[in-house]
Protein backbone atom coordinates (compact mmCIF):
# COMPACT_ATOMS: atom_id res chain seq x y z
CA UNK A 1 0.00 0.00 0.00
CA UNK A 2 1.55 3.27 -1.15
CA UNK A 3 -0.99 5.68 0.36
CA UNK A 4 1.33 7.35 2.83
CA UNK A 5 3.98 7.97 0.20
CA UNK A 6 1.60 9.83 -2.11
CA UNK A 7 -0.62 11.73 0.32
CA UNK A 8 0.26 14.61 2.63
CA UNK A 9 0.13 13.34 6.21
CA UNK A 10 -1.54 15.87 8.51
CA UNK A 11 0.76 16.00 11.49
CA UNK A 12 1.03 18.17 14.56
CA UNK A 13 4.40 19.89 14.85
CA UNK A 14 5.32 17.72 17.83
CA UNK A 15 4.65 14.64 15.73
CA UNK A 16 6.51 15.90 12.66
CA UNK A 17 9.57 16.98 14.62
CA UNK A 18 9.70 13.55 16.29
CA UNK A 19 9.77 11.52 13.06
CA UNK A 20 12.68 9.12 12.97
CA UNK A 21 14.96 8.73 9.98
CA UNK A 22 16.53 5.70 8.39
CA UNK A 23 18.50 5.67 5.15
CA UNK A 24 17.16 9.08 4.17
CA UNK A 25 13.51 8.15 4.78
CA UNK A 26 11.26 9.39 7.56
CA UNK A 27 9.11 7.15 9.73
CA UNK A 28 6.34 7.50 12.27
CA UNK A 29 6.80 4.16 13.94
CA UNK A 30 6.70 1.75 11.01
CA UNK A 31 4.79 4.16 8.78
CA UNK A 32 6.78 5.79 6.02
CA UNK A 33 6.17 9.55 5.84
CA UNK A 34 7.38 11.61 2.93
CA UNK A 35 4.82 14.37 2.38
CA UNK A 36 3.29 16.36 5.18
CA UNK A 37 0.81 19.15 5.83
CA UNK A 38 0.74 21.63 8.67
CA UNK A 39 -1.36 24.65 9.62
CA UNK A 40 -0.01 27.33 11.89
CA UNK A 41 1.12 30.89 12.44
CA UNK A 42 4.20 32.11 10.59
CA UNK A 43 6.36 33.31 13.49
CA UNK A 44 9.67 33.85 11.73
CA UNK A 45 10.74 34.74 8.21
CA UNK A 46 14.19 35.07 6.74
CA UNK A 47 15.18 35.69 3.14
CA UNK A 48 18.47 34.05 2.17
CA UNK A 49 20.20 33.82 -1.21
CA UNK A 50 18.11 31.46 -3.32
CA UNK A 51 15.59 30.56 -0.61
CA UNK A 52 13.07 31.72 1.96
CA UNK A 53 13.23 30.25 5.44
CA UNK A 54 10.23 30.56 7.70
CA UNK A 55 8.86 28.90 10.81
CA UNK A 56 5.29 27.75 11.41
CA UNK A 57 3.99 27.49 14.98
CA UNK A 58 0.92 25.28 15.31
CA UNK A 59 0.75 25.44 19.09
CA UNK A 60 2.56 22.14 19.69
CA UNK A 61 5.90 23.13 18.19
CA UNK A 62 7.71 25.20 15.59
CA UNK A 63 8.36 23.67 12.17
CA UNK A 64 11.15 25.11 10.01
CA UNK A 65 10.11 25.47 6.36
CA UNK A 66 12.07 26.32 3.24
CA UNK A 67 10.90 27.55 -0.14
CA UNK A 68 13.59 27.29 -2.79
CA UNK A 69 13.78 30.30 -5.08
CA UNK A 70 16.82 29.35 -7.13
CA UNK A 71 15.14 27.46 -9.94
CA UNK A 72 16.60 29.64 -12.70
CA UNK A 73 20.19 29.18 -11.50
CA UNK A 74 20.11 25.72 -9.97
CA UNK A 75 21.97 23.01 -11.94
CA UNK A 76 19.15 20.59 -10.98
CA UNK A 77 16.71 22.48 -13.22
CA UNK A 78 19.18 23.03 -16.05
CA UNK A 79 17.91 19.88 -17.78
CA UNK A 80 14.25 20.96 -17.51
CA UNK A 81 12.54 23.09 -20.16
CA UNK A 82 12.90 26.82 -19.53
CA UNK A 83 9.16 27.63 -19.63
CA UNK A 84 8.37 24.98 -16.98
CA UNK A 85 11.25 26.19 -14.81
CA UNK A 86 9.93 29.73 -15.08
CA UNK A 87 6.44 28.59 -14.05
CA UNK A 88 7.87 26.72 -11.05
CA UNK A 89 10.00 29.74 -10.14
CA UNK A 90 7.01 32.11 -10.29
CA UNK A 91 4.89 29.73 -8.21
CA UNK A 92 7.61 29.55 -5.57
CA UNK A 93 7.88 33.34 -5.49
CA UNK A 94 4.10 33.59 -5.08
CA UNK A 95 4.14 31.11 -2.20
CA UNK A 96 7.01 32.98 -0.59
CA UNK A 97 5.08 36.24 -0.73
CA UNK A 98 2.14 34.59 1.06
CA UNK A 99 4.24 33.43 4.01
CA UNK A 100 4.32 36.72 5.91
CA UNK A 101 4.79 37.16 9.66
CA UNK A 102 1.63 36.66 11.68
CA UNK A 103 -0.48 34.93 9.04
CA UNK A 104 -1.96 31.48 9.43
CA UNK A 105 -0.82 29.31 6.56
CA UNK A 106 -1.48 25.77 5.40
CA UNK A 107 1.90 24.49 4.28
CA UNK A 108 2.47 21.28 2.38
CA UNK A 109 5.68 19.71 1.24
CA UNK A 110 8.26 17.00 1.73
CA UNK A 111 9.82 16.37 5.08
CA UNK A 112 13.60 16.65 5.01
CA UNK A 113 16.37 16.61 7.54
CA UNK A 114 18.75 19.51 8.05
CA UNK A 115 21.42 19.69 10.73
CA UNK A 116 19.68 17.06 12.85
CA UNK A 117 16.21 18.62 12.70
CA UNK A 118 13.20 17.84 10.55
CA UNK A 119 11.89 20.56 8.27
CA UNK A 120 9.50 20.96 5.35
CA UNK A 121 10.67 21.67 1.81
CA UNK A 122 7.56 23.52 0.76
CA UNK A 123 5.56 22.62 -2.35
CA UNK A 124 2.63 24.92 -1.68
CA UNK A 125 1.30 27.53 0.74
CA UNK A 126 -2.32 28.56 1.21
CA UNK A 127 -3.42 31.36 3.51
CA UNK A 128 -6.09 30.37 6.01
CA UNK A 129 -8.29 33.37 6.75
CA UNK A 130 -10.92 31.45 8.73
CA UNK A 131 -9.77 31.57 12.39
CA UNK A 132 -11.33 28.14 12.97
CA UNK A 133 -9.03 26.53 10.39
CA UNK A 134 -6.37 25.99 13.06
CA UNK A 135 -8.85 24.19 15.30
CA UNK A 136 -9.95 21.98 12.40
CA UNK A 137 -6.34 21.05 11.71
CA UNK A 138 -5.78 20.06 15.34
CA UNK A 139 -8.88 17.88 15.37
CA UNK A 140 -8.00 16.30 12.01
CA UNK A 141 -4.46 15.55 13.20
CA UNK A 142 -5.77 13.89 16.35
CA UNK A 143 -8.40 11.86 14.49
CA UNK A 144 -5.96 10.75 11.80
CA UNK A 145 -3.33 9.83 14.36
CA UNK A 146 -5.77 7.76 16.42
CA UNK A 147 -7.72 6.12 13.59
CA UNK A 148 -5.12 5.78 10.87
CA UNK A 149 -1.49 6.66 11.51
CA UNK A 150 -1.16 4.78 14.82
CA UNK A 151 -2.46 1.63 13.11
CA UNK A 152 -0.14 2.10 10.13
CA UNK A 153 2.72 2.91 12.50
CA UNK A 154 2.32 -0.48 14.13
CA UNK A 155 1.77 -2.55 11.01
CA UNK A 156 4.03 -0.67 8.64
CA UNK A 157 3.32 0.41 5.04
Amino acid at each position, binding site marked *: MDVTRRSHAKLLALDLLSLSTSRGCFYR*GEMLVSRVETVGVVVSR*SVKPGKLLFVVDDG*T*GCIPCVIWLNHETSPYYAKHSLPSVRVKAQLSRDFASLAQLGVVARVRGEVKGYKGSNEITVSDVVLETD*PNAQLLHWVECVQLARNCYNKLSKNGV
Partner: protein
Amino acid sequence: MDAIASGALVTLTELNQSSAYLKQGASLRVTGKLVDYNLVTAMAVIVDSDSSIQVDTSLLTIHFRVGSLYQFIGELNIEPNGEGTLRARVGRIVDGLDMNLYQQSLQLLREHLPELALAHNP
Protein backbone atom coordinates in the same frame (compact mmCIF):
# COMPACT_ATOMS: atom_id res chain seq x y z
CA MET B 1 17.70 30.41 11.86
CA ASP B 2 17.85 30.52 15.66
CA ALA B 3 15.40 28.18 17.36
CA ILE B 4 12.09 29.87 18.14
CA ALA B 5 10.01 28.73 21.08
CA SER B 6 6.50 27.59 20.30
CA GLY B 7 3.76 29.61 21.98
CA ALA B 8 2.13 27.24 24.45
CA LEU B 9 -1.61 27.21 24.07
CA VAL B 10 -3.13 28.59 27.24
CA THR B 11 -6.43 30.21 28.18
CA LEU B 12 -6.49 33.41 30.21
CA THR B 13 -8.28 31.63 33.03
CA GLU B 14 -5.28 29.31 33.35
CA LEU B 15 -2.90 32.23 33.70
CA ASN B 16 -3.42 32.68 37.42
CA GLN B 17 -1.05 33.01 40.34
CA SER B 18 -0.67 29.31 40.86
CA SER B 19 -0.52 28.42 37.17
CA ALA B 20 2.43 26.48 35.83
CA TYR B 21 2.36 28.79 32.80
CA LEU B 22 3.08 31.92 34.85
CA LYS B 23 6.85 31.89 34.40
CA GLN B 24 9.17 34.71 33.40
CA GLY B 25 9.94 34.44 29.69
CA ALA B 26 7.42 31.69 28.99
CA SER B 27 6.31 31.63 25.34
CA LEU B 28 2.53 31.63 25.19
CA ARG B 29 -0.33 31.89 22.73
CA VAL B 30 -3.31 33.71 24.24
CA THR B 31 -6.73 34.59 22.85
CA GLY B 32 -9.22 37.14 24.08
CA LYS B 33 -11.46 40.08 23.32
CA LEU B 34 -9.78 43.48 23.10
CA VAL B 35 -11.33 45.74 25.72
CA ASP B 36 -8.74 48.49 25.91
CA TYR B 37 -5.93 49.79 23.73
CA ASN B 38 -3.53 52.64 24.49
CA LEU B 39 -2.05 54.14 21.32
CA VAL B 40 0.72 55.92 23.23
CA THR B 41 2.02 52.94 25.18
CA ALA B 42 0.85 50.29 22.63
CA MET B 43 -0.57 48.33 25.55
CA ALA B 44 -3.66 46.25 24.92
CA VAL B 45 -5.90 44.48 27.39
CA ILE B 46 -7.69 41.33 26.30
CA VAL B 47 -10.25 39.37 28.28
CA ASP B 48 -11.65 35.86 28.18
CA SER B 49 -14.41 34.93 30.63
CA ASP B 50 -13.41 36.71 33.85
CA SER B 51 -9.69 36.80 33.19
CA SER B 52 -7.60 39.39 31.46
CA ILE B 53 -4.01 40.06 30.47
CA GLN B 54 -2.03 43.05 29.32
CA VAL B 55 -0.30 42.71 25.97
CA ASP B 56 2.62 44.84 24.83
CA THR B 57 1.92 45.26 21.12
CA SER B 58 4.81 47.63 20.34
CA LEU B 59 6.36 45.10 17.92
CA LEU B 60 3.16 44.61 15.94
CA THR B 61 1.80 46.50 12.93
CA ILE B 62 -1.74 45.12 12.94
CA HIS B 63 -4.85 47.24 13.28
CA PHE B 64 -6.58 47.25 16.69
CA ARG B 65 -10.32 47.46 17.16
CA VAL B 66 -11.90 47.36 20.62
CA GLY B 67 -14.48 44.60 20.81
CA SER B 68 -12.75 42.26 18.39
CA LEU B 69 -11.14 38.93 19.26
CA TYR B 70 -7.36 38.76 19.05
CA GLN B 71 -4.73 36.07 19.36
CA PHE B 72 -1.15 36.85 20.31
CA ILE B 73 2.03 34.80 20.54
CA GLY B 74 4.80 36.18 22.68
CA GLU B 75 6.82 36.01 25.88
CA LEU B 76 5.53 36.62 29.37
CA ASN B 77 7.09 39.31 31.53
CA ILE B 78 6.24 39.04 35.22
CA GLU B 79 5.97 42.43 36.93
CA PRO B 80 7.16 42.92 40.54
CA ASN B 81 3.52 42.92 41.67
CA GLY B 82 3.11 39.40 40.24
CA GLU B 83 1.05 40.43 37.23
CA GLY B 84 2.05 39.21 33.81
CA THR B 85 2.40 41.22 30.60
CA LEU B 86 2.75 39.41 27.31
CA ARG B 87 5.23 40.96 24.89
CA ALA B 88 3.67 39.91 21.59
CA ARG B 89 5.85 39.05 18.59
CA VAL B 90 2.91 38.17 16.33
CA GLY B 91 -0.78 38.86 16.57
CA ARG B 92 -3.90 38.51 14.50
CA ILE B 93 -7.56 39.34 14.62
CA VAL B 94 -9.65 36.17 15.08
CA ASP B 95 -13.20 37.45 14.86
CA GLY B 96 -15.38 34.46 14.08
CA LEU B 97 -13.34 32.05 16.20
CA ASP B 98 -15.70 29.75 18.06
CA MET B 99 -14.36 30.08 21.62
CA ASN B 100 -16.31 27.06 22.89
CA LEU B 101 -14.88 24.96 20.09
CA TYR B 102 -11.46 26.44 20.80
CA GLN B 103 -11.62 25.31 24.44
CA GLN B 104 -12.80 21.84 23.42
CA SER B 105 -10.10 21.53 20.74
CA LEU B 106 -7.47 22.62 23.23
CA GLN B 107 -8.64 19.94 25.65
CA LEU B 108 -8.56 17.31 22.89
CA LEU B 109 -5.05 18.35 21.93
CA ARG B 110 -3.82 18.13 25.52
CA GLU B 111 -5.29 14.63 25.86
CA HIS B 112 -3.58 13.60 22.64
CA LEU B 113 -0.06 14.87 23.35
CA PRO B 114 0.84 12.07 25.81
CA GLU B 115 -0.45 9.58 23.20
CA LEU B 116 2.00 11.12 20.71
CA ALA B 117 4.87 10.71 23.12
CA LEU B 118 3.95 7.05 23.45
CA ALA B 119 3.66 6.59 19.68
CA HIS B 120 7.24 7.78 19.21
CA ASN B 121 8.66 6.05 22.27
CA PRO B 122 6.68 2.79 22.68
